[in-house]
């Protein structure tokens, strides 16, 4: 019986081998989304725990890494949803020049804040596509959706972000 079959039968040794083999990949994927190492570690542990609990639903001829990554993505989305900031920032007159490094830092923080207020699914798609510059098919596979749907989410994220930044008087450099 191969490793994946033993895993689906609940053998803890087989699961340990898989967990040690894939924990780095799962962590790397989650930290790209949540951007915090501590949170990413917690969510990786939670992902592996859920993977073990859902082992009966896994087909031994399937792709374990892709399956685990999808579970990890859903957990990361839930995390972003729970921790989405509610407060909006005050508006300022548009078109103000910002040469001061302190002002630029503040601008970056406000862009981060505006970005984190996006709906979680849009935020994840935009992070992976625009910040991490990952291929759309890889993002689509992890989100369990089509490439077209990912492109639409990125488009919507950019549109909302542009509108909010413009409303707050922030001009991207």
């Amino acid at each position, binding site marked *: 019986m191969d490793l994946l079959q033993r895993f689906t039968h609940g053998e803890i040794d087989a699961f340990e081998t898989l967990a040690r083999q894939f*924990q780095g990949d799962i*962590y790397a994927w989650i930290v*790209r989304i949540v951007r915090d190492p501590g949170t990413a570690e917690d969510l990786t542990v939670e992902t*592996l*725990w859920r993977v*073990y609990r859902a082992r009966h639903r896994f087909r031994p001829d399937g792709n374990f890494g892709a399956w685990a990554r999808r579970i990890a993505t859903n957990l990361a989305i839930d995390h972003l949803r729970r921790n989405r900031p509610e407060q909006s920032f005050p508006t300022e007159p548009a078109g103000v020049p910002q040469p001061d490094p302190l002002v630029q830092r503040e601008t*970056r923080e406000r*862009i981060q804040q505006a970005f984190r207020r996006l709906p979680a699914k849009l935020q994840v798609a935009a992070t992976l596509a*625009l910040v991490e510059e990952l291929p759309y098919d890889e993002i689509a596979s992890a989100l369990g959706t089509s490439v077209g749907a990912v492109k639409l989410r990125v488009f919507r994220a950019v549109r909302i972000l542009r509108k909010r930044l413009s409303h707050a008087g922030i001009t991207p*450099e």
Partner: protein
Amino acid sequence: MKEHEDKYMTEHNDREIRDALKQSFPPVNTELRRDLWPDVLRKLDVRPVAVPWYDWALAGLSAVMFLAFPRLVLVFAYHL
């Protein structure tokens, strides 16, 4: 011509947003710093079995019934 200009402006704005995001979110270290297997194993061991709320409600209701009407225990035992 107008369409072409609009498309150019949209692409330009998208690039600006992308650049702004890349500046606002510096690259993260994707290397895992420690082995997480012990944490996973601990979670597998200690995670309590979740009892649904309606089971607790049923147990509570039964306890109240048995306290209020002790003879019900006999009826209950008979049907077991």
